[in-house]
């Protein structure tokens, strides 16, 4: 019944105001795809952050090649080459010299291996058939034998998603690729938004000459065909550029900053190029909202109170454009991931052997006859992550914009 008397407590509960973020959050939760997107993104972020852990747990290395295991189908087990087995044994010997010593002595005294020299005992055991070797170790029943059993586990690698043309595990490369692709996407998005925020805020707040100059630049950059320019800029080598502007080899090898830049040239150049072409939309958005905010009377009121420009920008303008910025960062991450993939796909972005989703695709495009799945997987990941960011941005936009009514 509607004419029920409300208790004092209920009245209080109703009267209590909802903070802004609770309203926004509630709105956001109604956009199911955005929530799914957010969860997907969180999972990928976790994968990117935990890449070394995943590598350690599974014993897979993104750069380990295995000529015996090229183009393996997903879900197959591959034996390790002899040199890699030796390496593993050597590792064990270095890690636990005493256990290795004891084990060798045991093996020789009980004549379980036909080794000429004691030093070879563990290696000879390692080259036996796996089951046979494990049986031998079981007979020993010493704690050292137990330890060595683990080494055998790494002799066979399980390739969840198969291997590529040099026998590298696709799964772990995708995991590390997540790091690179997502990392570049997020870095570019945040930096681009910052640049856009500063340019847009300056143009919108000061107007006049500053505004028209900045907006002319923004508009002309915005109207440019990006890909030809990207190709052009990516084709220039950092060394040639430095030499052209008069910095010779001695100088750039002695300068810590320059040599660092040159060592990581591909990625830094990529981020730089992507940055140049991705701050403009944010700048226009921020300028637009600041222009409309500037005429709002609360800004004028702050001025009549004697507030400084910096106070007005920081206290009143930024909090009110934060929603625009949030949405723009989110959408920009997706765009940047796509851009990075496109550049790497053209062979102009992240350079192998560093894995990125884009250059894995670049690698795979010549192999679609032999191993079509190599081309499908990285693309699916790009699609999933970009789609998630786009949905998240859409959901945020709807949640923040009070005019958008859920239907």
């Amino acid at each position, binding site marked *: 019944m509607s004419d029920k008397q409300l208790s004092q407590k209920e009245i209080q509960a109703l009267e209590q105001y909802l903070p802004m973020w609770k309203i926004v959050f509630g709105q956001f939760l109604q956009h199911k795809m955005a929530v799914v997107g957010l969860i997907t993104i969180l999972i990928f972020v976790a994968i990117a952050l935990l890449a070394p852990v995943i590598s350690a747990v599974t014993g897979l290395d993104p750069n380990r090649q295995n000529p015996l295991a090229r183009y393996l189908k997903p879900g197959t087990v591959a034996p390790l080459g002899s040199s890699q087995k030796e390496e593993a044994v050597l590792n064990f010997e270095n890690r636990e010299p005493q256990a290795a010593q004891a084990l060798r002595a045991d093996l020789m005294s009980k004549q379980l291996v036909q080794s000429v020299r004691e030093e070879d005992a563990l290696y000879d055991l390692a080259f036996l058939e796996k089951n046979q070797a494990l049986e031998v170790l079981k007979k020993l029943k010493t704690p050292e034998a137990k330890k060595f059993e683990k080494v055998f586990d790494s002799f066979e690698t399980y390739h969840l998603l198969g291997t590529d043309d040099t026998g590298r595990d696709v799964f772990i490369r995708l995991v590390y690729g997540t790091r690179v692709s997502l990392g570049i996407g997020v870095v570019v998005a945040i930096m681009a938004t910052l640049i856009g925020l500063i340019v847009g805020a300056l143009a919108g707040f000061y107007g006049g000459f500053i505004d028209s100059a900045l907006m002319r630049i923004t508009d002309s950059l915005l109207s440019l065909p990006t890909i030809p320019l990207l190709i052009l800029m990516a084709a220039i080598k950092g060394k040639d550029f430095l030499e052209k502007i008069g910095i010779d080899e001695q100088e750039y090898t002695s300068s810590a900053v320059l040599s660092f830049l040159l060592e990581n040239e591909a990625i830094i150049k990529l981020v730089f190029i992507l940055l140049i072409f991705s701050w403009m939309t944010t700048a226009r958005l921020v300028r637009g909202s600041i222009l409309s905010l500037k005429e709002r009377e609360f800004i004028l009121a702050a001025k009549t109170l004697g507030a400084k420009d910096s106070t007005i920008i920081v206290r009143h303008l930024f909090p009110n454009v934060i929603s625009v910025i949030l949405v723009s960062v989110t959408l920009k991450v997706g765009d940047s991931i796509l851009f990075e993939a496109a550049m790497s796909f053209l062979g102009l972005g992240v350079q192998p052997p560093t894995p990125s989703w884009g250059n894995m695709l670049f690698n795979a495009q010549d192999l*679609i006859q032999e191993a*079509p799945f190599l081309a499908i997987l990285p693309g699916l990941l790009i699609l999933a992550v970009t789609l998630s960011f*786009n949905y998240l941005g859409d959901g945020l936009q709807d949640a923040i914009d009070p005019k958008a009514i859920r239907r």
Partner: protein
Amino acid sequence: MTTYIVRRMLQTFVVIILLSYVCFYLMTLMPGDPVELMIQSNPKITSADIERLRTLYGLDQPAYKRYANWVSSIVQGDLGYSRTYRVPVSELIGPKLVNTFVLSMSSLLLAILIAVPLGVLCALRAGSKLDYTVNFFAFAGISMPSFWLAIVLIIIFSVTLGWLPAGGTSTIGFEPTGILDGGLDRLKYLILPTLSLAYLSIGSFLRFVRASMMDAMRNDYIRTAKAKGLPRLAVVWKHGFRNALIPLITIIALSFSGVFSGAIITETVFAYQGVGKLVFDSITGNDFNVAMVSFVISVSMVLLMNLIADILYGVADPRISYK
């Protein structure tokens, strides 16, 4: 209006000049000018010869002077010679321009044909299952790397099914006996690139049509039209769609820049002989004259479409006045 167009054209012209200079300068930064290539192919060359060659090619002059020389020869109709293909640039670029034009127009057309009716339908049935599904695919279109779609299409239609060629522009060594014959052959090579290029634009067009159609249908004059008993179809098309069309025109014109950028990648994947692939090949292969000409052409085309978009906006919407 006229002053606006004249001002915009002047601006566009200035931007083209500036960009071509930037491009020119960046190209000079790349390793291997023609003389260096000659030195590599002819070890017996003397330093005096090198000097002479450098002067001959004008390489001893500063970049802006060389740029001025280049512009003056372009204006006289001399586009230069391709280093890679050993033919004059003008001969090289003509057919490729046609190929790119065919590819971008067919994919733009396909995108419009699919996106507009679907977008209108989604707007009319906002919130329905159809709307959600179509919206998902539209979002996927925006989020999908075009080259990946191209690869997937190749895997499905040429590697697995063997229906269509994986790349190229026409069958090599095939002598068409008639227009129909030749056309069909070309069409086979056009289908996959067109599909992969169109899918990109479909997503953004569709979302745009849907949004602007929903905006248009919310207006008071729609309510008036409904109230006076106009048939639903007439309300939707005459009053709703016509008003949603205005922003659509500009979006299509503006999307040309994206289609062109997409064409570069698509043409590269399909080895389709167009300007996009030419831009990529010539820049990475350091084919100076070809790179400059194709770069300037592609930039000019995109900027021209932007200009047309702006003007169309004013023509289509009487409320916009130009200052």
